[in-house]
């Protein structure tokens, strides 16, 4: 199994006629994702890579049937309206790729999603990829690269950095460790599916045997994961790396999340809290593959 995406999911692409939308729709199709419809207001009736384009999500739903997922390639100022449209139409999983979405817009999306039981990955996410199955968003960039970089295996990967999502999976793969699913939770402060939610999904996925997490300074996602482990809600072994050790307090890099707020959110605070509950935290990114191998071995998990 895998989480969030596999070959059976029927996927809509909002903004499919744009530069990014077109390119990424092709990546998804070539990798194996069932892209069944696209939506761009005012461009209904066209086709993109053989995918029919509709004016509204409701129309797409009526014409092609139920939609499991919508991937959004939409300019940030109108992401809210596109996301609410998908939620209203009944789509239960959204992948919001663009960055710079105003935070109050994200809060409104989160609120609407909660009310209808929908979920969203992002914003500011590269997406989700289940090796050998399907991809949402743009992880891997090209299908051929994605096929040569990632392969299936026992580890669930969750990351707050887009580039690092691929890097982790690639460097693990070099050691022979494959993955069930790669999730880039998104780089913003408020994201729909933060680490603790993704980790819970991995916990209930039977094929995921261990979890590898790339955390970052700022926010409380990693501390929340520690809380889950402490409460025994997550029992699978976790290996983590926290980025931003050298970052100056108050200096913010391009991830909106990397802000140090009080004690919560500091490098030291996160590492200590995770170690306290038994999570393996490595000091350098380079140690991650070996540490993961060791954990798998210790738990008798075969590759």
């Amino acid at each position, binding site marked *: 199994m895998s989480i969030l995406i596999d070959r059976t999911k029927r996927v809509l692409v909002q903004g499919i006629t744009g530069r990014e939308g077109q390119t990424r729709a092709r990546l998804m199709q070539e990798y194996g994702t069932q892209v069944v419809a696209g939506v761009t207001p005012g461009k209904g009736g066209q086709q993109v890579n053989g995918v029919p384009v509709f004016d509204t999500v409701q129309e797409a739903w009526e014409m092609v049937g139920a939609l499991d997922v919508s991937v959004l390639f939409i300019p940030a100022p109108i992401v809210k309206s596109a996301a609410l449209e998908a939620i209203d139409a009944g789509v239960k999983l959204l992948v919001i790729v663009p*960055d710079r979405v105003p935070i109050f817009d994200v809060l409104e999306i989160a609120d609407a999603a909660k009310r209808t039981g929908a979920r969203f990955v992002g914003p500011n996410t590269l997406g989700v990829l289940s090796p050998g199955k399907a991809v949402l968003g743009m992880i891997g960039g090209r299908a051929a690269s994605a096929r040569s970089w990632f392969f299936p295996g026992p580890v669930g990967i969750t990351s707050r950095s887009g*580039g690092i999502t691929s890097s982790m999976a690639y460097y693990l793969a070099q050691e022979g460790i494959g993955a069930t699913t790669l999730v880039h939770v998104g780089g913003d402060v408020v994201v729909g599916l*933060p680490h603790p939610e993704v980790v819970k999904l991995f916990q209930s996925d039977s094929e995921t045997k261990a979890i590898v997490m790339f955390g970052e300074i700022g926010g409380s996602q990693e501390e929340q994961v520690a809380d889950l482990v402490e409460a025994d809600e997550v029992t699978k072994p976790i290996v983590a790396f926290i*980025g931003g050790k*050298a970052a100056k307090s108050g200096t913010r890099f*391009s991830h909106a999340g990397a802000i140090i707020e009080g004690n919560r959110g500091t490098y030291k605070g996160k590492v200590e809290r995770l170690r306290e509950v038994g999570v393996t935290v490595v000091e*350098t990114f380079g140690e991650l593959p070996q540490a993961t191998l060791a954990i798998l071995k210790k738990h008798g998990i075969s590759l």
Partner: protein
Amino acid sequence: MARLHEYQGKSLLKEAKIPVPNGGPARSPEEAKALAEEIGGAVVVKAQAWVTGRAELGAIRFVDTPAAAAAAASAILGMQIKGYLVDTVMVEGKLDIKREFYAGVIIDDQSQAPVIIFSRIGGSGIEEIAEKYPDAVVRLVIDIQRGLQDHQARDLIRQVGLHGKLQLSLGNLLTRLYGVARRYDARAAEINPIVLTPEGKLFAADCRITIDDYAVYRHPELGIEIAREFDRPPTELEIIAWQVEKNDYRGTFYFIQLERGFSPGEGMIGFHGAGGGGSMMSMDAVLNRGYKLANFVDTSGNPPASKVYRAARIILAQSGIDGYFASGSGVASQEQFHSARGLVKAFMEHPLTVPAVIRLGGNAEERAMAIMERAQGEIPAPIESYGKDDSPEFCAERLDTLIQNYRRPTMKPAGKVHPEPQDPYTFETVTNGTVILDHAACLDCETKICIDTCVPGILSLEGEVPMLNITHEQAKRGGCIECLACEIECYFEGNQGGHIILPIPGLDRV
């Protein structure tokens, strides 16, 4: 995040009918004096700077007369506080304080909602107060649809034991504060302290409002120069970089100077990252080798070659750097040859005179590395490029070695200059760039490589020369994605038919 000055924040509070002391900003002692006269009686003169602990630094002064206000202003204006040059003071009527409270609205990542916080004890050291007297502080998650209801606000105040008219007016203040936060897309909006006077009136004595960077475009009325967090005013280079970012929506370019006024030999590295996570690890790798970072740059999210070029030019404008380190996540989704072309163009024009290590792992990395290698002979300083199988630590080690073994040229070599075109065919690009194809050179060109390598395929052969196969307007609207192939690939084939001028307003002056 874009922080507002106290006086700016107070004008928003006032607009929302939250009482603030009488007063306003002054930029000279005369203005301060005039304001003090207008206010009458004792006033306070406060430096407008984003630092805490202004009072201890002598940047907040209480005075009794307009003349003393002028003197206080002249002492404070021009002060350097934690690297911040004070150019504005705020002059306000002095409040009689009976009691102080705290109120704040912040966005909470865990509840994915705004949260309002109220403390029945306010004033400086609010964080310690909250720790010491947890019972004094109450919080409530706000429903984004309904907003903060009056009864919720009053009940929050009730929970810390405040009643009667005070409860009503504090409740009122909280709902208005939330209104300001929501209306102006604030990431955080705090009033500290809220002062209760002996007459029973409430005033917002100080405030801190931070606007969401991503929503700054909705609030042109706030006049925010750079929608980025700085704990000091932006530098000249940062303003130039922000203009580049603002005028080009493709990908992200972030630039911040971490050190200034350094000279060669101090171990400062011009840092060029791609993606937050990869950048952080790459920075750690450089720092662990004992170097310092002159700046932080991130070009990510699939930026065009032109944006990477401009970023590199801005990094190189910091003349005292000893090395250039470009490194991202290592396994980038974007096609890396765009970045390689941007870097190479900058390195050849500006000529790079310090060693550079470029880690370009990701899609099409072989092509990207080939471009870097091809450029080596054209650049006075050594460059090495690496792909996804080389770690940031290894790359930082290589940079260290190159720097150790490098002797800077005593004379700055001239950069690559383009010959005057004999038969120019030109069109404009989306960022006010100009593509010049010298059809006189193109006539003799055998490969016509620009046509095959132009990423969007907008060049076609007409007669013996490349021309746009779209209109000039389409090219300007973004049809030409500024992939720089028609300059770089052409040049590497031994021709000089293509040249792209990409202006960076203001950079020549630095």
